[in-house]
């Protein structure tokens, strides 16, 4: 449970980028992937994301559990999408090419194309987030936030959260075991209201002790003069290098590409059905 954020230490060009760069690139890449549904563009993003994954030297078997979740999510989400509105693709693309079936669940080429788009998006977004968490040291994360313009008080809150997650997790397990030994029941054997009350039996001691912790930590910080100066330095901060700037410029170009596609297509979707 030590490594909940899946950080994998390794020597690679991606690991060497500063946390701030990776954060900016992640945001830009996500924006690029969010604003357009142009299939060709999203496919390119997916390929770039997979290439970057290769460069980072993270092996697939190191993240295989997470990828299984992705596969499950993709299948499940697309099934739900289809069940809820099987004709959504027709609505978006404005044409109807029936492949087979009839009635409400008629399968159309448009609908399948829409599903293809959604899956490609998933393939573009998942590797890039995974890449970010695998190659960014969590302790550097807070200082990166500060570097990209988040006030240092808020960045410090993030640092505190990361610092106290393992402690609170341990404390939760202790309290939960102790209360279970006293006979509280949270499984399906009890009805919902009783289950929730049982959860509160565990959460109350956990949160009351956390309130004391807040008191102790804030007193300690106050005594050391936290928040006195306008700026603060970070133990884990790194300097920007040429590679960082190159990476950011590349991601800005990606976003520009997405905007260009949207204007050229006259909308967020690329429509192969009317173009030909």
């Amino acid at each position: 449970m030590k490594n909940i954020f899946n950080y994998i230490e390794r020597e690679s060009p991606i690991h060497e980028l500063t946390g701030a760069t990776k954060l900016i690139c992640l945001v830009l890449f996500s924006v690029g992937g969010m604003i357009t549904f142009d299939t060709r563009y999203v496919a390119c993003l997916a390929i770039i994301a997979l290439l970057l994954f290769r460069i980072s030297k993270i092996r697939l078997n190191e993240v295989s559990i997470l990828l299984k979740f992705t596969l499950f999510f993709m299948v499940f989400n697309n099934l739900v999408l289809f069940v809820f509105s099987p004709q959504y693709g027709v609505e978006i693309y404005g044409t109807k090419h029936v492949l087979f079936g009839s009635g409400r669940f008629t399968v159309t080429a448009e609908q399948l194309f829409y599903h293809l788009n959604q899956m490609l998006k998933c393939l573009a977004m998942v590797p890039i987030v995974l890449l970010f968490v695998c190659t960014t040291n969590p302790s550097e994360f807070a200082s990166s936030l500060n570097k990209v313009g988040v006030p240092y008080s808020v960045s410090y809150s993030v640092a505190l959260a990361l610092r106290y997650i393992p402690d609170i997790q341990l404390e939760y397990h202790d309290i939960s075991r102790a209360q279970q030994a006293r006979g509280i029941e949270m499984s399906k054997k009890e009805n919902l209201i009783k289950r929730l009350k049982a959860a509160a039996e565990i959460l109350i001691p956990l949160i009351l002790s956390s309130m004391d912790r807040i008191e102790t930590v804030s007193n300690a910080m106050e005594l050391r003069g936290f928040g006195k100066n306008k700026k603060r330095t970070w133990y884990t901060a790194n300097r920007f290098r040429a590679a960082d700037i190159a990476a950011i410029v590349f991601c800005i170009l990606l976003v520009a590409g997405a905007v260009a596609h949207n204007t050229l297509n006259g909308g967020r979707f690329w429509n192969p059905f009317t173009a030909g």
Partner: protein
Amino acid sequence: MKKFSVKTIVAIGIGAALFFVLGRFVAIPSPIPNTNISSQYGLLAFMAAVFGPLAGFLIGLIGHALIDFSWGGSFGGIWWSWVIASAVCGLIMGLASKKLDLSGGRFNGKDIVRFNVTQIIANIICWGGIAPALDVLIYHEPTEKLVAQGLMAGIGNIVTTAIIGTLLCLAYAKSRPQKGSLEEEKDA
């Protein structure tokens, strides 16, 4: 922006850590198969009621984003729409804090109603409005699906917060020294 007090900064950090642990590791089975109750929203309502709307906003934002990051984005990346909805939920729940005095040890019947009305409004706005609206904008999924998703989450969160959140407030208020509980002894 108003400068945060050190205590608020720490409360945000530890609140987000609690939100994370509850959301990531605490699994209470719900009546719907394969879905768990999100007890973290009861905590969010409580923290917002004690530390105010801005703290609530940041606890929701940081806590939820960290949960998504810890899954490595394996559920289709970071769901920014839901992260923002969690944050706004904390913000609205925190609006009740002005009329409440939990640190002063007061949480009477009127306060319980106030706390719960606020949390219900917050949940309706966030899961019935903000989350699906942003989802339509970002992911272009059919509105019916997104509204159904949001409603399920919203109703679940209202029930959880009503029970866990209220119990937390009661326990915390009881643990605080009551205002005016000390009396000056007059010498005879």
